[in-house]
């Protein structure tokens, strides 16, 4: 692939001075690919964690135990009302400093690396929004539908899993799409704790080659394409889950 495009970008650089080094220099090319790959991994992990937190949190919010409800409320207040970058620094430098080190046979590595902390911090941040998003979906499920399940002998857990959750998920899908897209973009904050995702990789390249504007363009294009793909996936999910005839 690089062989095909390299001559063009080399010539572009020579004639115009526009230096897209990853498109002709194998070393930068690998940095770009690796950055993209780590970025995608990071985004998938963050979204997955935030969804799990969202479902569990929304379930816990309906708990009969007051302390559990209170805990969920406190979690939302803390993580929704503080900037994600502060949370990231808090997790990485605050908690990271006191987590145990693992003996790797002669040298020590932290149990959770920068990638792990980025997933935890941004996942928890996104989860706090997802709890509220799922809650809005749960509240939109008609009480009478839940009552019908109750009358058929479903346990509370079965009602949540088979009736409330599938309906709530459909009702909150548009809001969830917004948050997932926002999280994909927030993943670039992992840059500040040196996770080698795309923003970090490209900043390495522009420090070496002093081609900031070109790499910025690349970064923009990357995120635009990525978000477009996510939006596509979510809207096809929405179509697939649509309830035939419902609300018409």
């Amino acid at each position, binding site marked *: 692939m690089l062989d095909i495009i390299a001559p063009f970008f080399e010539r572009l650089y020579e004639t115009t001075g526009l230096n897209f080094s990853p498109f002709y220099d194998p070393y930068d090319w690998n940095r770009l690919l690796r950055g993209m790959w780590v970025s995608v991994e990071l985004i998938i992990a963050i979204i997955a964690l935030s969804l799990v937190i969202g479902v569990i949190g929304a379930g816990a919010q309906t708990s009969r135990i007051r302390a559990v409800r209170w805990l969920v409320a406190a979690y939302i207040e803390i993580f929704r009302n503080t900037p994600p970058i502060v949370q990231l620094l808090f997790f990485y430098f605050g908690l990271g400093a006191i987590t145990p080190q693992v003996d790797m046979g002669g040298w020590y590595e932290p149990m959770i690396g920068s990638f792990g902390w980025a997933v935890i911090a941004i996942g928890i941040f996104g989860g706090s929004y997802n709890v509220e998003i799922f809650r809005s979906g749960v509240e939109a499920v008609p009480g009478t539908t839940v*009552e*019908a399940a109750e009358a*058929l002998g479903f346990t509370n857990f079965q009602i949540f899993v*088979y009736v409330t959750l599938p309906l709530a998920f459909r009702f909150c899908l548009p809001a969830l799409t917004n948050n997932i897209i926002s999280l994909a973009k927030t993943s670039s904050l992992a840059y500040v704790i040196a996770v080698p995702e795309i923003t970090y990789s490209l900043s390495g390249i522009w420090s070496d080659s002093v081609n900031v504007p070109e790499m910025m363009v690349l970064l923009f294009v990357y995120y635009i394409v990525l978000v477009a793909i996510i939006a596509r996936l979510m809207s096809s999910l929405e179509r697939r889950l649509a309830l*035939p005839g419902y609300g018409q």
Partner: protein
Amino acid sequence: MITADNWTPDQPIVALHDVHKSFGENEVLKGIDLEVMKGEVICIIGPSGSGKSTLIRTINGLTPVTRGSVKVEGQEVHDPDLDKLALRRKVGIVFQQYNLFPHKTVLQNVMMAPVLVLRENKDEVRERARSLLAKVQLNGKEEAYPAELSGGQQQRVAIARSLCMRPDVMLFDEVTAALDPETVKEVLVAIKQLAGEGMTCVLVTHEMGFAREISDRVYFTDAGRIVESGPPAQIFETPKDPRTQEFLSKVL
């Protein structure tokens, strides 16, 4: 005293004694006594707000009572230690708004409870669900989603869904009140067929002609009390209480 252990089928399958229910300050049921024998069809009629729906919902424990006793097959419904699952296996209910699961097909709606709650074999349940749907004239609609059906069709799915649990008693809470006049009949036909097969039915209804035709006994309620009860001919032709007379003169 009758309990779940010494109950026999010749005793009332449903027995309410001195049932009171308040929502805050508002007392909706003010001492209800009602007995239903196995195979009987009972209609509860009366003006809106007289507590009919609340009354029927106490029978399967959807509405907890404030005072009094509700027994199904001798089992106290409002006993805090009651196995609610066992009760709900015995008592099916059909609601005014059908309340089907909109994300499941018709067949899945009917199959869900026996498979999940009773843990019955899926193939057997499917067989039974199909024959119940055929019985309520819904063959060919198995794969449709609830929102693609008319109100009358949805209500018949709801009836099949309840029946698939093989209940001993069926409760019908104003099941035709939300339907178009043309579709009311198809639902009533399904209920009538069921009653004809010996199912114990308790209905809250505004369909006076139907109540008169189908019931063994009719209860007339007003302001949280049972004003009078008896065979339909007696209630509809020679009502004793002036409140019953007034109500019937308005609706008939």
